[in-house]
């Protein structure tokens, strides 16, 4: 079963077609998981990220090239050592409820995110912020305990909302964004209408409706019957079929998402790096990308969470090329002998690709006498097994999907470090922690490059998790949709969307 990897039938692009855009219209955006609540700083599911740039603004925002661009902050300066940042905010901006947005408001939002009691995901990205000061209405100063040259990117996801009224955020979606909330039915629909008082360029659409389909087939049906204009996260093997009749297939320019198997590096057998390596060699990544992702993915035999197309990708990493004999040998060395059983822990009901690649591994392991017991569980049970950090799950491969920002963003590498939250419970060697600290605190330069290389080498050698491939969410838009673009971790940016004139 070897040969050239299949080429995907339809190649995706990161941007929707260009062209004149009409004013008005309602865009229906479909996805298969629901928006459970609206608080932009304590996100409950990936589905919610669609709203981040519609209802809200941060001080900065992503540009398609993965750089942080001005948003509510018009400009910023930093001290030479990157420990003090001054953001100059726009004036005259208001929340949807009419309350003016000022630096004092921004301070409240930052402080809320940094509050250890608030489960804000973005907190870890800005945990070096030690003091937030509003110098005047338009000047916000962030002081850091560690230097962070990437701070503007790190704060993209700190969205500005009326903290004083945060208890009602699900009712009013109060932000400063181009659209405001009209109706919200948890897990079903979020209806947005144009914010006529938007401080920026006037949005094209009258309304954006985000709807949720219970299963991918129903969603596809809706796409085919034209009920929905944009469908997010379509299954890879259905992408090509859906992207016909002029429909556009979209994905990130440089995907930074990965299909991985998380391992508990504190319990046997995977407390032994040799066992982890053995597993890495046993993974037929090419076949898995073909069968599970219809060719819309890149195998990552270097076993690092870096897209091989990224400029910081270390080309010289030894590849864990599929080699069952070697895997068998390494397994034996680590005490995983013929007749052993491992567990493949995956989700039921969604992400069927994980099971597909699990079955490939199952077949291959069977050839070297190891039984792979595939167990599926619905999402909550699935996550409870290995999440949050610190759980023990011996002998288990927890299939998962990780999204990061691309290098040189430090997040993907920092996640494995001691202060990171990788559920692999890996205690990184000092050298690795050192490298991460350097990456976090250095601007562009050879120092940064070396640290990035070092971290990748250690990951490749230690294999705290198995990285099967780099893939990205695929989205499909109807032919007449314009102005969309897809961010590296998959979010579809709708803020400038409209219909072809």
């Amino acid at each position, binding site marked *: *079963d070897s040969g050239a990897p299949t080429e995907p039938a339809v190649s995706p692009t990161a941007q929707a077609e260009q062209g004149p855009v009409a004013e008005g219209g309602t865009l229906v955006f479909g996805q298969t998981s629901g928006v459970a609540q609206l608080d932009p700083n304590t996100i409950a599911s990936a589905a919610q990220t669609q709203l981040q740039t519609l209802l809200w603004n941060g001080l900065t925002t992503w540009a398609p090239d993965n750089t942080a661009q001005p948003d509510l902050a018009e400009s910023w300066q930093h001290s030479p050592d990157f420990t003090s940042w001054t953001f100059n905010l726009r004036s005259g901006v208001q929340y949807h409820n009419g309350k003016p947005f000022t630096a004092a408001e921004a301070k409240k939002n930052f402080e809320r995110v940094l509050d250890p009691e608030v489960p804000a995901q973005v907190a870890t990205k800005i945990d070096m912020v030690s003091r937030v000061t509003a110098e005047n209405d338009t000047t916000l100063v962030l002081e850091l305990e560690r230097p962070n040259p990437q701070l503007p990117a790190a704060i993209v996801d700190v969205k500005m909302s009326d903290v004083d009224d945060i208890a009602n955020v699900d009712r009013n979606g109060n932000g400063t964004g181009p659209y405001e909330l009209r109706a919200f039915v948890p897990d079903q629909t979020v209806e947005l209408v144009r914010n006529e008082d938007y401080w920026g360029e006037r949005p094209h659409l009258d309304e954006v409706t985000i709807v949720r389909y219970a299963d991918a087939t129903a969603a596809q049906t809706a796409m085919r019957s034209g009920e929905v204009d944009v469908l997010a996260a379509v299954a890879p*093997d259905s992408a090509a079929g859906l992207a016909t009749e002029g429909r556009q297939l979209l994905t990130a320019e440089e995907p930074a998402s990965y299909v991985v198997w998380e391992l508990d590096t504190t319990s046997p057998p995977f407390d032994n790096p040799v066992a982890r390596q053995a597993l890495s060699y046993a993974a037929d990544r090419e076949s898995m990308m073909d*069968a599970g992702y219809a060719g819309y993915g890149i195998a990552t035999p270097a076993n690092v969470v870096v897209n091989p197309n990224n400029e910081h990708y270390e080309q010289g990493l030894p590849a864990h090329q599929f080699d069952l004999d070697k895997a068998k040998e390494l397994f034996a060395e680590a005490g995983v002998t013929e007749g052993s059983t491992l567990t493949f822990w995956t989700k*039921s009901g969604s992400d069927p690709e994980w099971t597909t690649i699990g079955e*490939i591994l199952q077949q291959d392991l069977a050839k070297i006498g190891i039984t792979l017991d*595939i167990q*599926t569980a*619905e999402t909550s049970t699935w996550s409870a097994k290995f999440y949050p950090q610190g759980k023990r799950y011996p002998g288990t491969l927890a299939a998962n999907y990780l999204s990061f920002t691309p290098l040189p963003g430090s997040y993907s590498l920092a996640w494995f470090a001691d202060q990171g939250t990788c559920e692999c419970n890996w205690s990184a060697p000092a050298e690795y922690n050192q490298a991460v600290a350097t990456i976090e605190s250095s601007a562009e330069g050879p120092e940064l490059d070396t640290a990035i290389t070092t971290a990748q080498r250690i990951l490749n050698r230690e294999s705290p998790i198995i990285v099967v491939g780099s893939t990205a969410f695929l989205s499909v838009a109807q032919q007449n949709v314009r102005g969309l673009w897809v961010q590296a971790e998959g979010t579809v940016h709708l803020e400038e969307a409209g219909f072809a004139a």
Partner: protein
Amino acid sequence: MTSSTSSTAPASAGPLLSRPAAVASLAVLGFLVLLAVLAPIVLASPTEIHPRDAFAAPSPAHPFGTDELGRDLLSRVAYGGRISLGVAAGATVIAMTLGVAWGLAAATPRWHGEVLMRLADAALAVPIVLFALVFVAALGSDLVAMTVVAGLLMAPLTARIARSAVLAELASEYVHALRAVGVRRVRVLFGEVLPNAAPALLAQASLNLATALMLEATLSFVGLGVQPPDASWGTLLDAGYRRLYESLWYPLLPALLIIAAIGALNVFGDQLRRVLHRGGA
């Protein structure tokens, strides 16, 4: 009197086999069972993967095409029948045993009958999907769990049907007469009423078999399926349904077999009931 011999005993196979519908349904069921039994002898391996041949269209080598890993769909479905039919049969046995005992116990006019019935009602009042999900999460997924869960889920309804069938019989005049004759209550229940309620119960059993197949599909949908690489009709239907637009063949075969099996079961149950009914007016 010249009146001579008369009707045959109700349960013999003769009258059943003289009904074309019964024969046809038996033939379908027989074929499905045979397919499941003979699968290992005549068909390709259901687990051998050829990722490059994924979603192949029907061909002589794969009469119904292949799945996402290039496995032969026909043999996967044939093997799936072993699991699905086994689960359905097991679940029905559980549901009937439990349900009929429950229903009979609940048919007593005393307080514990009432309590038992309310218990069944309480169980029925909670939507089946919820219980299914809860069981899924609590028990994890495997064949035995699925059989037991499906059986348990069907038991309360069976109990209610059994009870109402029994109560309807208990209300008839002949029970009155039997009580006058001095037949013990238990005897009336088991010897007279239950056999009389048999058509209703048989119909329920065939319904249960059908429901079990359906439940199997539904449970697979929420994740309590058999574990890969094995597959039941339900998991195959689920997998195929998710890839409906990639390969129409994929869901078609399991769907057809499920429908054929449930249909044949219903028809057979119906015919059986009618034959038994010959004994009554």
